């Protein structure tokens, strides 16, 4: 009755938009968790007519676990360790980011129209969402200063790439693409861990210099 695909896609777009406008890093991580779950739910909903083998089902469940729980969990831990609560001075402000989001979606609709791919029925919105998510991820990486926000932008970009894969394939031999996606995820996980360590180093440095400044006076 209610078209579940479209609802999932709209929720993905909602999370993209909210993450462009949010200045709290904790909220950003929550949006990413929501987006991850939705992105990994999508293939299940798309392929409701053709059967997915039990292997495929397990695969998608693992993906929900990784995208919805593991990666946001890692980010959460990273945020807990680092004391930063919010992005203070983004390179492009929040109002402008929101407006850029609007332009991004316009452009991605235009691109979808112009590409004229022979998409399966009802996947035009999927491709639009995918391109929007990708470009918004790029935008987030470019326009924020904090390393952790840039990683979130990278994750969003990766979600978008995965969505493009889902939109274009008919899931006949998807296993490779999905595996590739998960590989990228793991890569991001490693990156996050690197940032945790890096940031801890940074904070200790900062504390040290503060102490030194105070001593000087």
């Amino acid at each position, binding site marked *: *009755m*209610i*078209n579940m695909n*479209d*609802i999932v*896609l*709209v*929720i993905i*777009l*909602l999370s993209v*938009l*909210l993450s462009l*406008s949010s200045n709290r890093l904790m909220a950003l991580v929550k949006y990413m968790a929501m987006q991850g779950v939705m992105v990994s739910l999508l293939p299940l909903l798309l392929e409701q007519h053709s059967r997915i083998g039990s292997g495929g089902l397990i695969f998608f469940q693992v993906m929900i676990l990784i995208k919805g729980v593991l990666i946001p969990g890692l980010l959460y831990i990273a945020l807990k360790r680092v004391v930063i609560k919010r992005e203070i001075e983004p390179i492009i402000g*929040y*109002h402008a980011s*929101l*407006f850029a*989001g*609007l332009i991004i*979606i*316009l452009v991605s*609709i235009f691109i*979808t129209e112009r590409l004229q791919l022979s998409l399966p029925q009802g996947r*035009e*919105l999927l491709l*639009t969402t995918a391109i929007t998510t990708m470009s918004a991820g790029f935008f987030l990486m470019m326009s924020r200063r904090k390393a952790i926000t840039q990683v979130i932008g990278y994750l969003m970009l990766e979600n978008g790439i995965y969505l493009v894969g889902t939109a274009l394939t008919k899931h006949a031999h998807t296993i490779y693409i999905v595996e590739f996606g998960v590989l990228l995820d793991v890569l991001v996980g490693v990156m996050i861990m690197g940032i945790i360590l890096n940031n801890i180093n940074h904070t200790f440095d900062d504390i040290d210099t503060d102490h030194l400044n105070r001593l000087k006076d």
Partner: protein
Amino acid sequence: MESFCTIALAFLLAPLYPGIILKVKALFAGKKGPPLLIKYYTLLKLLHKGSVYSTSTTFVFRLGPLVSCAGAMMILLFFPLGGISPIFSFHGDVIVLFYILGIGRFFTISAALDTASPFEGMGAAREAFFGTLAEASIFAILILFYRMTGALSFSDYFIGAKSISLDGTAGALLLLVIVSLFMVLLTENSRVPVDDPATHLELTMIHEVMILDHSGPDLALIELGSFYKLFFYSAFIFLIVCPFNAAWGLFNLPVFFVGISLVYVAIGLVESGMARFKMNLVPKFVLTSLILVSFAAILTMEFIK
């Protein structure tokens, strides 16, 4: 006849629902909270009192409460509460009605400026600013609805031939509309993330500071008007979430009046869970709602060709 009963019920019950918000907030704070009928007691108390008018005010000051309350009552007359056809309806009534609400706001602001109190002037400026931003979102919603239904009246939106519902052609987009309409509701009715109805510091008030000089029956009218306005926005959201079938007749009424309290519970939850924004963050909040709807309006290009 049905329509008249519905409207009468709505007018009677509207002051009950803000009590629900208070109850929810009290439950979250671990308190017992005021009784559910608290707003009726407040209204009765205010109506028993007399009004005090400052000698420096003119007739504009007395006009403010009347006009704002009448505007809020009028919009309910045009709204298909619970899927029952409204008393009045014509093509294009949505635009008229939102501007009638605007007139109400205009008179509240003029009344506030009429007192010549600096605090009230400050509140009036803020109210005008945020109201302008919220109006943009509302009209973006109307544009979207026009694209979806081709109609411009509340009754066509909700009980017409091509009424909007979540399982329609572009139904998924309504999710964006619901989120954005809830943000507009919080802004327009001066609820917590934007304004705090329980604040006691004039510098931080928006709506409350404008009505500081009103007393007695005037204050009761203002309160009543704000209850009706809140009721209208909640009904708007609830009808989008859960469209009613006009064929069910009076059976819709209990469902509607119970269901709408869910919206109020949601408001209560938001108010308990959030602190209010800094003043400079409020425009971002309102603009987010505008962008959400614009998103949806752009996306209709995909659905409706």
